[in-house]
Structure formats: structure tokens, C-alpha cells
């Protein structure tokens, strides 16, 4: 006779198969909860750290319109971090623990944010490629079986589409501009193309967690499927803009899929393990923001305690 846990597991999987959303308070396997906390935490950290590469250019935007757009985009990333920390909190994770894990280097964030933004065109290319890849991944996660994560993804995708379009608009203008503007756009593509492919994660054969995540409806597509969607969407548009994909082995197969050449996974894993160009700088910036904000958090708590004491004495 099956034990209670086995019965619950079967009921849980049947719910997911019926397309139901799992909500806070519902029974879920411990491993489902743990995988979600890990994934959502990493995702939240990626949004927060993701403010840094582009934030570096806020003071150097070439026009007021571009500056307004970039401020709005960076502010959105901060908001997206909030949506995601919220989703993880509904699973029992605490904000303080997640922040501590990031600052201690125990929690990961997307490898792509450990690359430097060397020119203004990088801001546009990040919008077009990095946000473009993120949207592909997040549209998939919007179908996720866990209600709070799914809702955060729907909200983020609707806002991130603006990030993608402003970047594409900027790069298309530079790619049809002066020779130095065209060079700047191509140089940005040359440096961001491969990191954008890598950020969608290891090949399916090297993703041992994927089958279980798919069975639980946490992921609804594999890394390679999402990567292929990203490539098929972006290669024709980049080529139409007059840019060259920095992959001599790329070709279009009989199905119409654009097939990429070999990805340098040694580089990917080096960045994930902390040896990218900006890992140390990114964590130092987060640590400084956390330290600099301490007096604000203390003042807010002191004010709230005073208010509560006032109420109690009434």
C-alpha cells in the first residue's frame, strides 16, 4: 500500500498535468520547493546585479531621451528583483537570507552580468540580446506550475518587452549610421553574442535537473529549445540591420532553424565559478550598496518602533 507521501506526490503531479497552478499553502514535494527557491533566488539576484552593467552608463547617455529610457530600464530591473524575491518568500525563503547568500558568493546570478559594458552601444546590445534571451526564457517560465513565479514572469515580460525594443531601436540606428557608429554596433554584437547564448544555460545533455523540472511544470521547455527560439528570432533581425553574427559556423538548416557553432563552455563555467571579468566588481558594488543602506534600514526600524510604542501607550 502506498504511503501518504506517495499518494500526495501522485495527486500533486496530477494537478500539474491538469494545468492547475500550485499556490502557497498547497502541498508540494520538498524538492519542488527547494528547486524553486534556488531558481527564483538566482533569478532575483540576476535582476538586481543586472542593474550594474547598464547603470554604469546613466551619467553618459548621449541624449535626454536615451537617459530617460535607461533610468526607466534600470528602475524596472530593481522592481523585477522585488517581484521575484516576493515569489521566493511565498515558499518560506527570507529576504535577509537570500541577500546574505548573494553577498557571501553562495547564491549565483546570471553569468552574463559579469561581462563589462565598454561602449554606449553595449547598452543597446544588452537590451536587444540579453533582454531578448531573458524574455524567451521568461515567456517559458510564465507557464510555470507555481502561481507566484508564473505571475512574476507575466508581469516582468510585459515590462521587459520595452527593454528589448529600445535596445533594438538603438542598435538599428547605429548599424545604419556613420562608419564609427556601425563599427561600435558590430563590436558590441561581437562581444555580447556568445554570452547571450550561454546565459540560456548548458546544453540539455549537461543539464541533469531539467527532466525533473519539466515533469513538475517548473520549466516547460529545455535550455536548448529556448536557445533555438532566441537564435531564430534574432539572427534574421540582426542580419537585416546589416550586422554580422560572429559565428563562422552558423547556418540555416532544412527546417529553417539557424544552427550555431560550438559554444565555449569552459568560458561559461569559468564565469559561473567566479572568474569572469567583473565578478569581483559586481559583488563589491552590491556589498557597498548594502553597507551604505544600513543607516536607512536602521532609521526606518527605529521610526517604526517609536510609532508602535506610541500606539501601545494610547
Amino acid at each position: 500500500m502506498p504511503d501518504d507521501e506517495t499518494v500526495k506526490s501522485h495527486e500533486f503531479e496530477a494537478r500539474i498535468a491538469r494545468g492547475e497552478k500550485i499556490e502557497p499553502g498547497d502541498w508540494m514535494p520538498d524538492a519542488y520547493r527547494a528547486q524553486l527557491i534556488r531558481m527564483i533566488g538566482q533569478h532575483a539576484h540576476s535582476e538586481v546585479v543586472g542593474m550594474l552593467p547598464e547603470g554604469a552608463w546613466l551619467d553618459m547617455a548621449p541624449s535626454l531621451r536615451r537617459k530617460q529610457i535607461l533610468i526607466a530600464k534600470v528602475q524596472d530591473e530593481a522592481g523585477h528583483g522585488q517581484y521575484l524575491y516576493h515569489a521566493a518568500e511565498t515558499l518560506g525563503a527570507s529576504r535577509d537570507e537570500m541577500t546574505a547568500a548573494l553577498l557571501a558568493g553562495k547564491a549565483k546570478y546570471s553569468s552574463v552580468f559579469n561581462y563589462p559594458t565598454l561602449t554606449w552601444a553595449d547598452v543597446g546590445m544588452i537590451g536587444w540580446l540579453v533582454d531578448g534571451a531573458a524574455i524567451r526564457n521568461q515567456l517559458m517560465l510564465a507557464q510555470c506550475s507555481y502561481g507566484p513565479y508564473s505571475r512574476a514572469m507575466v508581469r516582468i515580460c510585459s515590462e521587459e518587452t520595452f527593454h528589448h525594443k529600445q535596445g533594438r531601436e538603438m542598435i538599428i540606428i547605429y548599424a545604419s549610421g556613420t562608419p564609427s557608429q556601425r563599427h561600435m554596433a558590430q563590436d558590441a554584437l561581437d562581444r555580447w553574442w556568445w554570452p547571450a547564448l550561454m546565459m540560456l544555460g548548458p546544453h540539455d545533455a549537461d543539464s541533469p535537473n531539467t527532466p525533473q523540472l519539466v515533469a513538475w511544470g517548473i520549466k516547460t521547455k529545455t535550455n536548448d529549445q529556448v536557445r533555438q527560439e532566441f537564435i531564430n528570432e534574432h539572427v534574421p533581425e540582426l542580419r537585416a540591420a546589416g550586422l554580422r553574427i560572429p559565428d563562422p559556423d552558423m547556418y540555416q538548416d532544412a527546417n529553417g532553424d539557424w544552427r550555431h557553432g560550438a559554444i565555449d563552455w569552459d568560458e561559461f563555467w569559468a564565469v559561473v565559478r567566479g572568474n569572469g571579468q567583473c565578478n569581483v566588481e559586481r559583488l563589491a558594488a552590491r556589498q557597498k550598496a548594502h553597507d551604505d543602506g544600513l543607516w536607512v534600514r536602521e532609521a526606518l526600524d527605529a521610526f517604526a518602533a517609536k510609532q508602535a510604542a506610541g500606539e501601545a501607550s494610547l
Partner: protein
Amino acid sequence: MSRWEVFKQDAAGKPHQAVGSVHAADPQHALVTAAHVFARRPAAHSLWVTRAAAIYSRTAEELAAESQAAGAPTEGQAPVSFEVFCKSTHRRSMTFVEHVATIEAATPAAALALAGAATSDDSRALAWWVVPTAAITASAPTDAASWFDPAKDKTYKQQALYGAAPSRAAKRGAG
């Protein structure tokens, strides 16, 4: 600081919907933070915040498991006002429960029982939140214009105002 759940009303006459949470020290701080996190774009008409700890939350699965258990006796307790929120669809959405009723009851569980009876139509309720009305802080109607209207002018944040990607054919056509 504590965690506050945020409810956003998109327009007058629409229900307040749960959109997510913020960390804040007091209700006013929670409202200001909620406006920055959840109302950067149109449209918002009003925000409510309440401490997450003040919410009585039950999913359909939890209620089914509890159905055998007798409800706690409520006789002798004075009724107070509760705001009741419900989720009734698995459809893709960016909001969770939405406001469905204000109910006088002695306990959140009793309010939920009354609300369930009051809304027993075909749509099966999937999740409920019950919050004492007194535990909710609302944005001031007089602040609505200054808090929410500026987002309408920031059209550069709206993806619909950017063009579609050019195709090679379109580029040729444009010369």
C-alpha cells in the same frame, strides 16, 4: 521591517487585486514603496497595503483538508469587518486574489464561510485571503493624481510605442 502585501486597483469601480509584496517599516512607507514597485506604468487608481502576517489565507486544497474539522466556536465574539479576496481561475495572470466582498464576522474563518456561501456560483474558488478591514491602509484619493498620473506621460516606457523589427524587404522598400 516587515513584509506587506500590496493590492492595486487599476480604475475606479474595478476590484483591488493582489500584485505582490514590499518590505517596509510602516504603512506609509509600504504605500510609497508599493507605488514605485507596482505603479511605474499606467494604470493605477488606488493602492492598499496590509502586513502579510495579518492575512488569513486558505487554498481550496487546504479547505478540503479542513472540512472534517469543526469550525471554532464564535459565539460571544463581537463581529468585525473583513475584506475578502478570491482567486477563481488558473488562467495566466499577473495578479493573484481580487477583492470580492466586505463581510462582518466574528473570525476570519467565519467571514470565509459566509463569503463562500455568498459567491457559490459556477466558478470554483481556488484561493482565499481574508484581511481585517482595520489592518488595511489605503492610498489617499487626494494623492492619486500626483502618484499615478505622471506614469501616463512617460510614454518611452511603453513597449507598444516602439516599432516592429525591420525585415530585409521593408528595408529595401524604404530605399
